[in-house]
């Protein structure tokens, strides 16, 4: 649990945050979304006390962080940043083992933990001896995430962790982090300026403008944002399209029994994997000129996805019906 109450941060003559309030319940991934320089990173750095607030209170797990020791607070918070911040003179193993070693874990436990984490972030175990300079950007960032998770903290702070990766690697890591988060259910504050990234990962998105939060809600809530204004401008006119990448084909397909459909359909369909995103499906529909695609699960057909499914199921069918 993270809670900021009326937090302000002022530098000499600039105001980074004014009366900032935010609460992230246990197990939620909240994305702080906003343009560069709007104070997103300031929020993160306030929580692990890399900087001090000018006024206001911050609670982590119901404890006022001013009354906690620096080291105790920080060792309980995983921290991942854009340029990994990996120690160049430590190999992968030592980098991941930093916090467990500070917490004086036994060698055997650390060995076990490092293996577990390498598996979790999808790195081969024989990477342990490599130095950060020998890793690709994506690999380095995986190690960064593993290091943040090392001592199994309840809270993760992530400051544009995938920001410096190429689009392909970024998407791959987002997917894997999404999977990891579903599995571990950490309380995560994730900072980014990438709308699509926010859509893919967030349980809730808080849209920021310099110094303050403008709006907060689930990713699909923002689709109802009709007013012309800051939010709409920042999220972009293609927000609905981007939102499609949040959903998997298997989430929106027709739930009617497959057998019935098998009788009806005799014609040939293009195929799509059930774990592809809905945006992939739509893209395929457009490129193939088809209104329906066959959904497969390991070569086995499990149903059909229709253009109408996307319209109705993704963007809240009930809203359309009312109108």
């Amino acid at each position: 649990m993270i809670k900021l109450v009326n937090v302000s941060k002022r530098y000499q003559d600039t105001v980074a945050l004014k009366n900032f309030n935010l609460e992230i319940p246990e197990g939620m991934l909240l994305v702080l979304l906003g343009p560069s320089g709007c104070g997103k990173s300031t929020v993160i750095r306030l929580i692990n006390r890399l900087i001090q607030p000018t006024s206001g209170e911050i609670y982590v797990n119901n404890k006022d962080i001013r009354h906690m020791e620096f080291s105790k607070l920080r060792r309980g918070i995983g921290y991942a940043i854009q340029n990994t911040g990996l120690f160049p003179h430590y190999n992968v193993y030592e980098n991941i083992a930093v916090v467990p070693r500070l917490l004086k874990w036994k060698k055997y436990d650390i060995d076990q933990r490092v293996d577990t984490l390498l598996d979790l972030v999808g790195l081969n175990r024989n990477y342990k001896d490599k130095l950060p300079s020998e890793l690709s950007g994506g690999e380095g960032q995986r190690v960064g995430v593993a290091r943040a998770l090392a001592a199994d903290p309840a809270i993760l702070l992530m400051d544009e962790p995938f920001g410096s990766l190429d689009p392909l690697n970024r998407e791959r890591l987002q997917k894997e982090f999404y999977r990891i988060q579903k599995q571990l259910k950490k309380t995560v504050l994730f900072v980014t300026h990438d709308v699509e990234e926010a859509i893919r990962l967030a349980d809730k998105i808080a849209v920021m403008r310099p110094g303050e939060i403008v709006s907060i809600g689930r990713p699909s809530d923002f689709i109802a944002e009709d007013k012309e204004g800051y939010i709409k401008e920042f999220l972009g006119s293609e927000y609905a399209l981007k939102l499609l990448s949040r959903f998997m084909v298997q989430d929106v397909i027709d739930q009617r029994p497959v057998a019935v459909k098998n009788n009806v359909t005799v014609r040939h369909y293009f195929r799509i994997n059930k774990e592809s995103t809905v945006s992939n499906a739509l893209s395929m529909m457009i490129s193939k000129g088809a209104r329906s695609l066959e959904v497969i699960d390991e070569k086995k057909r499990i149903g059909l996805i229709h253009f109408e499914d996307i319209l109705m199921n993704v963007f809240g069918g009930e809203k359309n019906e009312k109108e």
Partner: protein
Amino acid sequence: MKKNKTNFMIATIMLFLLFLFSIFKFDVIEKLLIFAIKPKDFFVARESLFELARQHIFIVAVSSSLSVLIAVCIAILTRFPIMNELEEFILGIAIFGQTIPTVAILALLVPFLGYGFKPALVALFIYGILPVLRNTIEGLNTISEDVRESARAMGMSPFQVMSKVELPLAFPAILAGVRVSLILNISVATIGATVGLKGFGILIVNGIRSDDIILILKGAIPVSLLALTVESLFMHLEKKFRLP
């Protein structure tokens, strides 16, 4: 990369062997030199070349160790927020110390410390500080802010950040500073002979006085070889500790 490592290692060993040869078997070199240079009446040093080498190396080792210790400490102190402003000032003083001619420092020290070992030690100590200080400060400054911040964010104390992250990362730069400081002191120590310091400098100073080139070379050749040996040894170490 690997090839370079072995090169410096071999060079170090060969230079060191040459150095040993020059202090133990200088008569062989002398015989060769006599072909080119007309010998003078031989000045006979009271100490053997080995004894002079021992004393030369001793004073350089002692003074450089002291300078390294002090310089690294000062550099670490400048990292603290309060001292941060002083970084330029401290470097300024060190650079100023460097610009005073060796002979002047030695002459200034003699009234206080007498002749021989002591004034030379202090002079070498002062000269040795700057290279190490400058390199350590540079080395610490080049560490990326991300790395420093990560270390803090993971709950390291300021002492742990320094000992586990900053100093190890600055170590190759510090080594380079130690190398420059040692080379400098090996040469400056010869000038120490003007205030009566025992070392290779005695041969050179006496050689100049008596216009005896062979005697000058008897001091100059071993000193040069010693300097080259140290240079090459530290190049090897720096390569070894530098991160790929």
